[in-house]
């Protein structure tokens, strides 16, 4: 075997060794990031336990008035464990949260709404109260809204059909049309969503419980300026972490793009 035959073989082996080294390197990047997450998780656990025990003063007084509407997104795998959801709602009520929108993509919590409302003292279904009843004097009351994926894109399609019919009517009878050509504005879609029975209130804060850091199909129209916080697994939820997330939200100052 002469030198010319050896060269391609050598190049091949050098390439293989290089690839193996890079593979090992990429695995180690993953190991380092995993270790970082483990250490952060341990630190978080210690901190939230300290908060739960009232050892950290700044979390003992929260300006809850700033949090007018809270959304809680629950992964479907954990939505089946309604007892955890009930515990969470009781904690939220203790903190002083007045309105909560509970979301899971499949509507499992909607199916259990009667049980949830019964098990959480002082809870009322949001539709029964309406927005005008939400006042600071209603102490100890928590309004709960149950939301699923059908309230997202499906609802927008229904609302779009309403606007569409309005648009077609205004084209057929221009003399009767007071609004002019444009029925496709945000306020019109808001109104159409209300007509199909949807709440258009934008949550101030969204807590996501589950393995995925995603809002999992929460009504898109309502998400514009919502703060989104991933809380981890509902199974291992901690009161201290909840307090910390809400406290952090009360310190956020939004400029709304301006």
């Amino acid at each position, binding site marked *: 075997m002469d030198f010319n035959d050896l060269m391609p073989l050598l190049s091949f082996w050098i390439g293989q060794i290089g690839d193996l080294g890079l593979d090992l*390197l990429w695995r180690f990047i993953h190991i380092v990031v995993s270790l970082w997450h483990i250490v952060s998780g341990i630190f978080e656990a210690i901190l939230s336990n300290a908060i739960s025990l009232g050892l950290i003063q700044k979390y003992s007084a929260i300006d809850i008035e700033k949090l007018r509407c809270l959304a809680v997104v629950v992964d479907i795998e954990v939505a089946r464990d309604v007892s955890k959801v009930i515990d969470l709602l009781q904690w939220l009520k203790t903190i002083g949260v007045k309105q909560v929108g509970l979301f899971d993509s499949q509507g499992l919590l909607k199916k259990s709404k009667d049980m949830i409302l019964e098990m959480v003292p002082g809870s009322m279904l949001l539709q029964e109260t309406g927005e005008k009843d939400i006042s600071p004097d209603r102490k100890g009351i928590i309004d709960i809204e149950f939301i699923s994926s059908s309230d997202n894109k499906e609802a927008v399609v229904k609302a779009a059909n309403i606007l569409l019919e309005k648009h077609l009517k205004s084209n057929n009878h221009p003399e009767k049309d007071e609004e002019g050509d444009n029925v*496709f504005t945000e306020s019109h879609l808001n109104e159409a969503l209300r007509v199909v029975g949807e709440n258009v209130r934008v949550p101030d804060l969204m807590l996501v419980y589950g393995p995925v850091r*995603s809002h999992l199909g929460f009504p898109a129209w309502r998400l514009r300026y919502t703060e989104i916080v991933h809380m981890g697994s509902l199974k291992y939820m901690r009161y201290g972490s909840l307090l910390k997330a809400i406290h952090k939200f009360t310190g956020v100052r939004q400029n709304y793009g301006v």
Partner: protein
Amino acid sequence: MLSLVSIFLTCLALILIPCLFIFRRPSFPLFLKKIIIFINTTASQYNDEEERYGTIGEKGKRGRMPKHVGIILDGNRRWANKRGLRVSEGHEAGARTVLEHAMDCFAMGINTLSLFAFSTENWGRPDGEVNFLMAMFEKNFKSEMAYFDRYKVKISVIGKRTNMPQSLLGLIHEVEEATKNYKEKHLIMALDYSGRFDILQACKSLAEKTKNGLIQVEDINESMIDKELMTSCSEYPNPDLLIRTSGEQRISNFFLWQSAYTELYFSNVLWPDFGEAEYLKALTWYQQRQRRFGRRV
């Protein structure tokens, strides 16, 4: 011999990798670029396997790359304030970061990169800042058109466009026309974009089609709205990963409809400082999400 080399590379990695996360700007750009090229090769190998066999093992999930990444470019003004610079200098630094790293993203195997550069709400900023931003977009489209053409990057601009200067609109049209046939790499610039407006214009577009008899009212459904959204210009309209820089944890009216199952990654780094190490961290994080929770929700 092979094992000795592997051991040597492993020790090198143990020393060098922590540096990636300690120092913002690693001093081994060539080294990182090698990793990026390797990831791209591995990712395409595993994506092919998944398409062929419909399954992917743990090892494969590690190599999976997002096809569409969205980035909310936040923090230019704070970056400038921290350094005692003018706001315009912060925006210029942000634009340099876009141009420096766009090609790295495509080298990693990302097909579509969407950048939220200017929202509809941003028109409310001081006139001086807005005028500067419009001029900067114009300057960069002009100067980088040849670059994107050379590297076969398709450029699309999504947004309202009603308040933009005519000169900028003309340039946008020129760049889009010049690059419309490229497929492998797609850069979407969201200028004067609003997620709510995107949904409304999709509804309006369907209304026009119904009025013209092209479709029936009863046929309108979610997938029809999907096709009318501005992101329908992309082969992958829904982002797999959405990154927001500067520590804010909201999507601020970006891709509201499209982000239902998008992984959300919030980085504390200000946009002009978002470099290779931060990209690697975001992508590693994304791959870990896939590895642990690969089940479909």
